[in-house]
């Protein structure tokens, strides 16, 4: 019988890489309070930065479900850190799709890994969705929270119903670019060391 069930070791791997991805993402997010353009740059920078741990994670995936569980964990963490529940279904959906794509390539083919990582990266864009769906409320909240009017003007000019599709697409493209960057880093450091 082929071993298709996830084992304890796989769960621990998922946990470790989720923690790593979250730390990278959170460190970058802290910069967002300087200028609204930084918030926009999340869509480009976070997929690329997170690609480094993600590509190492991909080398450890052999079974279906690991990416799905990771997306569930990310959704939970995003909820707890105050990103709202609106983006959660999308995060989990892209996790499942990314998992299916990677599965098609047998978790080994580089081409499907790249596309799968691009799709998975859309989770970063999911965090913008509360901004669009509840734009007016969100703006009021931010002004109340002490953000300046300028900040909000720029932010909402950039993030609205028209640009959200573009932002999601941007996440995908930079996810693909990130996959190449991450692969190069993994090859440079980890394959030599025999970890990947």
């Amino acid at each position, binding site marked *: 019988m082929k071993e298709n069930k*996830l*084992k*304890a*070791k796989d*769960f*621990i*791997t*998922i*946990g*470790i890489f*989720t*923690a*790593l991805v*979250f*730390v*990278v993402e959170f460190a970058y997010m*802290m910069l*967002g*309070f*300087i*200028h609204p353009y930084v918030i926009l740059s999340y869509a480009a920078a976070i997929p690329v*930065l997170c690609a*480094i*741990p993600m590509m*190492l994670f991909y080398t450890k995936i052999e079974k279906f*479900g690991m990416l799905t*569980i*990771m997306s*569930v*964990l990310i959704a*939970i*963490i995003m*909820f*707890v*850190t*105050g990103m*709202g529940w609106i983006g959660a279904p999308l995060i989990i959906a892209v996790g499942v799709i990314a998992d299916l794509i990677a599965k098609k390539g047998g978790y080994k083919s580089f081409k499907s890994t790249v596309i799968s990582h691009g799709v998975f990266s859309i989770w970063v864009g999911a965090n913008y969705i509360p901004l669009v769906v509840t734009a007016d409320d969100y703006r*009021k*909240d*931010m*002004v*109340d*929270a*002490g*953000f*300046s*009017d*300028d*900040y909000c003007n720029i932010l909402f000019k950039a993030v609205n119903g028209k640009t959200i599709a573009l932002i999601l697409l941007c996440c995908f493209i930079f996810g693909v670019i990130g996959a190449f960057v991450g692969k190069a*880093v993994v090859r440079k*450091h*980890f394959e030599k*060391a025999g*970890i990947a």
Partner: protein
Amino acid sequence: MRKLELDPRTKLFMIFAISLIVMVNAYTPLQMVIRIIVTAIPILLMTLEGKYAAAIRFAVLYAAAFILQNYYLSAGSSGLLSALITGYCGIVAQFMPAMITAWYAIRTTKINDFMSAMQKMHVPDGVSISLAVVMRFFPTIKEEYESINDAMRMRGISMGGGKVTKMIEYRLIPVMFSCVNIGDELSAAAVTRGLGAPIKRTSANEIKLRAIDYTTMVVFAVSTVLFMAAKNIG
């Protein structure tokens, strides 16, 4: 006297309720009061568990951010410095309650109790094991990062020098290396202790919901409902 110990499920419920509350901003005085109360409860619980230093640190930090945010900053503020202050007060005042609760829950829950609570809630093993690892792993990453930083400084590679890409490379890659190794050790240790064995897991420390758990849950449920209602009433 026995220390006050809440059931992990109560702590999860607290995190859930507080995440809902911090997501919406407080407009009315009633909401402000609710927010302060739900922030005060975890701080109080921390002192009861003997974590005085952390409790005081969180209380002071939160109070400072709260006062700054409500009395010194407005929509008219601009400029880089005020943007920075705004940002940090925003983070602190907005997310601190959730962070405090999460910190409290993580630091005071034994992984054993967490696992049996998850099992009682019928969460699939995969999610609960992974989540437990994530919870335990943040302090480890921080520790590893600090040691790597020290090692880098000893060799004269400081934060400011060099290109941005190098800065990321010199920090992220070693952290990933040590995390992967720790992960391997962790799974070896866990598997020898029977994690993932195909039988129902038992626990020496039986968890159950006591009166104090129900009280806490009711307090938080009522606060959340009131908080949401207050927003709609206006």
